[in-house]
Structures are given as structure tokens and as C-alpha cells.
């Protein structure tokens, strides 16, 4: 199993979550975060902002679904055809075990 943590623009989350639902990946957790990237935030006039609001989408999926989910997030999180700074990042980590509390079973 893989955990996918995608940091995206907050205004893009509803589109991404809708597309994931249609593709058969309903389960997700959304967390509001602030962050900056390689560009060190953004400078507007004389003010430098380095705590930009983003949304982090966290999902745990089976190994074979990983690429589909990444593709869907990539496609819908981009702004413009080329994408632009601040569109976000996707991180993948390995999950060793998952439990469903309602049934107590050791499955995703």
C-alpha cells in the first residue's frame, strides 16, 4: 500500500476530489496547511509572503492504483496548460499496514 500526500491549491480540491470519486477512489482526507516552496513564497509589492495557504490531500491506495491516482491529481491540480509555480507537490510513502476500525480487520 502507498500513502499519497498531495499539496495542492485549496481552490482545486473540489475538482480533484470529484474526479477521484468518478474514477473510483472515494476515500481521502483533506487537511488545511500553510507552506512555501522552492521559490521562497511570493512577493507582492513590498510584502513577502512565505506562509501560503494550501490543502493537503492524503489517501492510502493499493500499489497498483498509485499511478492512476497520481495522474488524476496531476491533471486537475495544474493551472494553465503548462502549470505554474505554486501548483503543489505529490509525495508517496509506503504504508506497511492498514486497519479498518469499524470491522477491526487488517485491510484497507
Amino acid at each position, binding site marked *: *500500500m502507498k*500513502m499519497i500526500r498531495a499539496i495542492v491549491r485549496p481552490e482545486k480540491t*473540489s475538482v480533484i*476530489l*470529484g474526479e477521484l*470519486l468518478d474514477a473510483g477512489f*472515494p*476515500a*481521502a*482526507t*483533506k*487537511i488545511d496547511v500553510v507552506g512555501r516552496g522552492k521559490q521562497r513564497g511570493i512577493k507582492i509589492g513590498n510584502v513577502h509572503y512565505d506562509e501560503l495557504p494550501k490543502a493537503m490531500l*492524503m489517501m*492510502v491506495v493499493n500499489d497498483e492504483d498509485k499511478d492512476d491516482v497520481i495522474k488524476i491529481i496531476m491533471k486537475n491540480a495544474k493551472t494553465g496548460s503548462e502549470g505554474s509555480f505554486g501548483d503543489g507537490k505529490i509525495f508517496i*510513502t*509506503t*504504508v*506497511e*499496514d*492498514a*486497519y*479498518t*476500525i*469499524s*470491522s*477491526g480487520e487488517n485491510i*484497507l
Partner: protein
Amino acid sequence: MKEIISVIRINKMNETKKVLSEAGYPSMTAKKVSGRGKKMSNVEVLSNLIDNGDLNTFEHQVVESITEKDRMLPKIMFTMVVADEDVKNIVDLIIETNQTGSMGDGKIFVCDVEDAIRVRTSEHELNAI
């Protein structure tokens, strides 16, 4: 070391905290999140119910409020980093405390952690947790 990430119901948080600290695992980081799971309401059934069902005003409101199929529910996510041999015990405690048997009880994920560092003393690995 393993990281245990669990997503649970908000109203179970106090009980979970109490049970875990009594068992000797007090350290955790918790955050309010919104989420959705695999099981969702069947929009077709619900809209049929609204159209044909004999509902009173309250039932109608309830049914209408769950027709939005991709709605996210508020949950608490908490993470703990613990030694390998404690994982089984903690997972069992969390399941035992949070299980109501109906959907929406939450999930627990277990991931590997390579290193942990205590900022105050620069201690590494198990000494740091």
C-alpha cells in the same frame, strides 16, 4: 520505529487519549481534518426516497442533507511514533476504543520511520521518542 496514523470520530478523541495515556503511550499529535471513505450514500436511492417516500419534515431534511455524494466529514487525525514492539498493542487499543461497528469509525495506517530526533538534546532514534 513506526508511525501510527489514525483517523477517528471527533467525539471519540477524549476517550482515546485517556485510554492511550493510561496504557503508557501519552505522546501524540492530533489535527482536525475532513475526510470521506469508501462507503458513500447511494444518491439514486435517496432521491427516490425524496420523490416517492412518505417523509416528515425532519426525515426530509436528513435525507436531503446526505444526498451530496462527495461531501467530506469532519474527523480527527492523530499520529504517534512508537517502538516496533508497541505497534500491535496500540492498534488494538485504538480499535477497541473507537469501534462502534458502523461505517465511519475510521482507519489506522502504520508506516516505517527512519529516524527521530529530539530537538532539545539532539538525541536520535528510540532515545528521542
